[in-house]
C-alpha cells in the first residue's frame, strides 16, 4: 500500500475510532443510534478499502503460483528419474528370477 492510500485509510480509520469513542460515552439512545449509524457507514468504507487492498495483490499470487508450478515439474522429473533407476533394478531382479526358473525347468526336461 503506497503512502497516499495509507493516508486515505488512516483518515477513515481515525474517523471510525472517533465515532466509536463518542458512542461509548453518549448518554441517550437517540445520540447512540445516530453515532452507530455513522460508525457503521465508515466501517463499510474501511472494509471496502481493505477489500480493494487485498484484491490488488491477487494477480501477483497467480504469477507466483505459475513460477512454483514450473519448479515443481522439474522436481517431479528428478523424482521420476530416480524412481526409474530403482525400477530398473527391480526389472533386473525379475529377469534373473525368470532365467533361474527357465534353467530349472530346462534341466528337468533336457539334461
Amino acid at each position: 500500500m503506497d503512502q497516499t492510500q495509507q493516508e486515505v485509510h488512516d483518515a477513515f480509520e481515525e474517523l471510525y475510532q472517533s465515532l466509536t469513542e463518542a458512542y461509548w460515552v453518549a448518554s441517550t439512545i437517540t445520540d447512540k443510534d445516530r453515532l452507530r449509524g455513522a460508525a457503521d457507514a465508515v466501517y463499510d468504507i474501511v472494509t471496502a478499502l481493505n477489500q480493494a487492498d487485498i484484491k490488488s495483490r491477487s494477480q501477483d499470487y497467480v504469477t507466483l503460483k505459475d513460477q512454483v508450478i514450473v519448479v515443481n515439474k522439474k522436481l517431479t522429473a528428478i523424482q521420476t528419474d530416480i524412481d526409474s533407476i530403482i525400477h530398473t533394478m527391480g526389472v533386473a531382479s525379475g529377469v534373473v528370477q525368470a532365467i533361474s526358473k527357465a534353467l530349472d525347468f530346462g534341466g528337468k526336461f533336457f539334461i
Partner: protein
Amino acid sequence: MKANPQPVNARKSPMHTDFRIRYSGLGWILCALAFAVGCLSPAVHKNVPAFASAVTLATENTKSAFDVVEQEYENVQAERIVVNYDREGFNPNMVKQFLGPEDLEVRLALLDALQHYASTLAEVSGDKQLDQFDDKTRALGSSLQSLTKTAAFQRLVTSSAMEVNIAATAINALGQWFIERKRQQQLPRLISDMQEPVRRTAELLQADIGSAPDDHGHGGHGLREQLWNEYTQAALQQVAFIDHNKDHMDPASKAEAIKKLPQLVRQRALADQTLKQTQVTLSKLVEAHSALLRAVQSKTDIQAEFSALIGEGQRIKSFYDSLQKKG
C-alpha cells in the same frame, strides 16, 4: 611322515582370500567414487523437514486468518440485521462476503503449490528412495544367488556366493552414485530458483494480513485492521441490542448479554495477536528456505566429510553384510 591332505575348503581358502582382497578393494573404490561426487549434506536432511513443517504451519495459519476474518464479518452482518430489523427489515443484498471466492482461491492455490514443492523436495532429498534402491539390489542379489545354485547354471559357469555378493554390492554403489549425482547436480539450482517465489509469497501474505490501527487510528490495513474493526462493530451492535431491549430482558439474559462485551474486547486483542503470529511464521518460512539453500550449497567441513565417508562406508558395509547373511 605323510602329511594329512588338506580339506577341499582349506585348499580353496587362499584363492577366496585373494578374491576378498581384490573385490573388497573394488567396493572401496566404488565407495570413494560415490563420495567424490558427494552426497547431500546431512544439514539438508535436517532442513528439508524443517522447511516442510514451516510451509504446513504457514499454510494452516494463513487459511485460518482468512477464515476468522470472514466468519467475524458474517457475525457482524447478522448482528447489524438483528439490531436494525425493526427499522430496516431484511434484504438478501445485506448479506455479503468479505473476500470473493476467486481472491481466496488464488491464495490457497499458491499455498498448495508451495506444500507440493515442500513434500516433493522431502521425498527427493530423503533416504526413502535410497532405501528402496537397497531393497531392490538386495532382491537382485538373492535372485543371483538362487540362479547360481541351480544345477544347470553350475554346469555352465562356476561362480561363488562371494562373487555374487560383491557384484551386487558394486551395482548398489553405482546406483547410489547415480542417484546422489542427480540430486547433487539439480537440487541446489531448484532450491535457489525458489528463493525469490518463497520470499515474495511471504511478503504478499504478510501484506494481506497487514497491521492493526494504533490508538489514533493510524497505520492499520489488511486483515488485522479488518478483524480489529469487526470486533469493535460486534461490541457496538451488542450494546445497541442491550440498549433497545433491556426493558424486556430478564435479569439472567441481560447479564449474559452484558458479559459478552468484555469478552469481545479480549477476543479482539487475542485475535490480533494470532494474526501477528501468523506473520512471524511466514518470516520463519523464508528463513527455513534460506537455511535450506545454505545447507544444500555448503561444503561440509573435514569432520563432517569424514563422518559422511564413514557413514557411506558403513552403509555399504551393512548392505554387504546383509547379503552375506542371506547367501
